[in-house]
């Protein structure tokens, strides 16, 4: 009988098992069909779609208690680009005293990346 894991432990168990076997995210993708980006989000504690839960549970050889699991995709739980428009989260290797011109330039590149990604998503949806 397989072990039953609470949904909230699925990500940490995935991470533990993957590191134990020294498998990269790409290697797990080949075995599960789940993208590295989704696997990484799951390991960080984000709640995936139920289809992803099933695939990962099968790979781990466990069953998962999914009471109350959400069917919405990850993007609905993330702040929109409007919320973050002028305060940008960034890992930045730069001088501690950043000039205003450079700060604004980096913010503009962030805006452009967000815009391009939104256009890409719209095209995908058709």
């Amino acid at each position: 009988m397989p072990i039953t894991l609470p949904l909230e432990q699925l990500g940490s168990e995935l991470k533990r098992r993957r590191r134990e076997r020294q498998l990269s995210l790409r290697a797990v993708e080949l075995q599960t069909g789940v993208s590295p980006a989704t696997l990484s989000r799951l390991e960080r504690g984000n709640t995936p779609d139920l289809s992803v839960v099933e695939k990962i549970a099968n790979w781990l050889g466990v069953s998962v208690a999914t009471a109350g699991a959400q069917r919405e995709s990850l993007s609905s739980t993330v702040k929109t680009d409007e919320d973050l428009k002028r305060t940008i989260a960034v890992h930045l290797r730069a001088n501690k005293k950043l000039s205003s011109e450079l700060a604004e330039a980096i913010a503009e590149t962030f805006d452009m990346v967000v815009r391009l990604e939104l256009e890409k998503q719209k095209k995908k949806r058709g």
Partner: protein
Amino acid sequence: MNATGLFLPFTPAGKATELRAIEVKAHLGLPSRAIVDPFSVLPDVPAELRQLEAVASAETAGTMLARSDEWSGYAITVPATGEHIIVLNPAHSLERQRATLMEEIVHLVLDHPMSELSVSDSSAPRVNSRTHSSEIEDEAFCVGAACLIPYGLLFDAVKVRGEEVQSIAARFGVSAELVRYRIKRAGLTSIYKRRHSAL
């Protein structure tokens, strides 16, 4: 060599750094003694490297290149998709870009909290601010250096082969400055100085 079979630095700080680097390599599916090539492991982070001209208008890119001495690189997360995008300063040498990229990868893999860059919308005198944690930045750079030059290989180069900094730098594809930093942080300065006049 300890009970786990790992060859670790003798100092507590050096040991802690090496263990963090091994943790990063485990996430990337690499063995503990591996030399990380940051460019090839991006899909395993996962993150995407984008050229500056792909994320900036000509004017913005010009501003950033004119202020090239102020920045090395940055990583952002696209809110709608959670995807990580990394941009490196194209004016920097390949060796320096490699170190910056490795540092950004460490930030992402270790899930460091991001800094907040606040940019004023007002056309009046602009007040921009940025949160900054020296501790987090130090860990990312230090662990990144350990991923690029694993301790066992550095020890071999310094103690066994008696290599000079420039030779080690060329072999690992990093700057001489990074090698000196790594030797100091790994606690190998005195060993290096026994064979060479200065670090």
